[in-house]
C-alpha cells in the first residue's frame, strides 16, 4: 500500500471515528442508564474490532504455518494485528467497566462475556511476550504462530465454560438497541462498527510497516553500524618509501 493510500485511509478512519464520537455525544440520555447509554456508540464497536483483529492474527498465523503460504509477511501481519487487538481488548474492558460502574454498581462482574474478554487479553499478552523474546526470526515466527493458533482453539472452549458458569451480560447489543433504544442509538453504533474497523485497518498498515523496519534493522543494522565505524576510522597511510 502506497504512502498516499495509507494517508487517505488514515484520514477516513479519523473522520469516521470523529463522526462516531459526535453521533454518540448527540444521543439523548435514557431513563435507565442516564448519560452512560451513549457508551453504546464506542463500546460494542471496540469489542468487535478486538475480535476482528484477534481473528486476523489467528488466520495469518495459520497461513504462516501452512507450508505453501509460509512467508514473513503473514508473521508480521499476525504480530501487528495482535498488538492492536490487545489495545482494543483492553479498551473494551475499560469502557465496559466505566459503563458497568453506574449501571451494575460495580467496576467488574464475573459475567461470561467480560471474563472471556479478560481471558483473551491474557492470551494476547502471553503471545506478545513470546514475540518479544529475541532469537532467530524463523523460529520465533513458528513458535508465535503455534501459540496464536492454540489460543484461537481455546477461545470456543472458554466461551462455553464461562457461559455455563454465569451470565449477566446484556444480549447482543444490536438486538437490544433495536428494541429498546431506537434508531439514533443503532445508527451511532453501526457507524462505530465501520469506524473502528477502518481504524483497525489503518493501524494494521502502520504497525506492519514499523515491524518491517524493525526486521530490516535486525538484519542490516549490524552491517550498517560496522560500515559507519569503518568510515570513521582514519585512512591507513601509505608506507613511505625510503630512497
Amino acid at each position: 500500500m502506497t504512502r498516499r493510500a495509507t494517508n487517505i485511509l488514515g484520514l477516513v478512519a479519523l473522520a469516521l471515528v470523529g463522526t462516531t464520537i459526535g453521533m454518540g455525544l448527540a444521543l439523548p440520555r435514557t431513563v435507565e442508564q442516564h448519560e452512560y447509554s451513549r457508551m453504546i456508540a464506542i463500546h460494542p464497536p471496540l469489542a468487535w474490532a478486538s475480535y476482528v483483529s484477534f481473528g486476523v492474527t489467528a488466520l495469518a498465523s495459520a497461513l504462516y504455518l501452512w507450508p505453501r503460504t509460509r512467508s514473513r509477511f503473514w508473521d508480521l501481519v499476525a504480530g501487528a494485528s495482535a498488538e492492536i487487538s490487545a489495545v482494543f481488548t483492553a479498551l473494551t474492558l475499560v469502557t465496559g467497566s466505566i459503563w458497568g460502574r453506574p449501571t451494575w454498581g460495580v467496576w467488574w462482574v464475573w459475567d461470561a462475556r467480560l471474563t472471556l474478554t479478560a481471558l483473551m487479553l491474557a492470551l494476547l499478552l502471553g503471545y506478545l511476550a513470546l514475540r518479544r523474546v529475541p532469537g532467530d526470526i524463523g523460529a520465533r515466527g513458528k513458535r508465535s504462530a503455534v501459540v496464536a493458533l492454540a489460543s484461537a482453539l481455546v477461545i470456543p472452549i472458554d466461551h462455553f465454560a464461562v457461559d455455563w458458569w454465569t451470565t449477566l451480560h446484556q444480549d447482543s447489543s444490536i438486538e437490544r438497541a433495536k428494541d429498546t433504544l431506537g434508531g439514533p442509538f443503532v445508527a451511532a453504533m453501526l457507524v462505530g462498527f465501520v469506524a473502528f474497523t477502518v481504524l483497525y485497518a489503518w493501524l494494521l498498515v502502520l504497525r506492519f510497516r514499523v515491524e518491517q523496519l524493525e526486521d530490516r534493522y535486525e538484519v542490516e543494522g549490524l552491517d550498517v553500524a560496522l560500515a559507519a565505524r569503518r568510515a570513521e576510522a582514519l585512512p591507513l597511510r601509505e608506507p613511505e618509501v625510503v630512497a
Partner: protein
Amino acid sequence: MFRDAALVAGKDLRIEARSRVAMNQVAPFAVLVLILFAFALDPDHGVLVKAAAGLYWVAVLFSSLLAVQRSFAVEAADSARDGLRLSGLDPAGIFLGKAGAVAAQLLALEVLLGVGIVAFYDTRLHGAALLIATAIVATIGLAAAGTVYGILAAGLRVRETLLPLLVLPAVAPVLLAATRAWEVALGQSADNGWRWVQLLGVFAVVYVAFGVLAFGPLMEES
C-alpha cells in the same frame, strides 16, 4: 508412535523415580499451597469447605507448571534435547510420552492433594465416579497443554517467567470446568457435573491433537 511414547514416558518416569524431584519438591510444594490457603481463608467459618474444589485445582495447576518445567529441564542437561531429536523417535510419540509422564505424576499428586483436602479442609468426598473421571480428563488436558507450551519455551532464556504466562490463561477453562465438576461431586453445587467433564474432554482432545501435530515442528525450533 505409541511404542515411542511408552519409551519416552518410561525414561521420564525412571529419571523421576531416581531423582525424586517430584516427590521431594513438587509434592511438598502442593501440600504447602493447601496449608497456605487455610491461612489466607479463615478455616472456622466454613470457607475452606466451600472453596475446597477450587483451591484443590489451583494447587494442581501450580504444581503442573513445576512438573512441566521439570519435564523439560531434564532434557536441557548435556544437550539431551538434541539427542531426543536425533533419536529417530516419532515427534508425536515423544509428545505423548512426555505428556503421559507428566499426567502420571500429576495423578499421583492429585491423590495426595485429595487426602490433603479431606484432612485439612474437612471435606467429604462423595460421587467417586465424577471425581475420578474429572481428575483423569482434566489431568490429560493439563499435561497436554503444559507439554505443548513446555517445548515452546524450552530453548528460551526467559522460560521460567514465560511459561506461566502462556500456560495459565490457556488452561483457565480446565480450572473452571474441573472446579465446577468437583463442586457437584463434593455436594457444594447442584449443577450437572458431567457436562463439565465433557467440556474437559473437548479441551483434552483439542490439546492432545494439537500437540501430536505441532510437536515435531516445535522440537526442531527449540
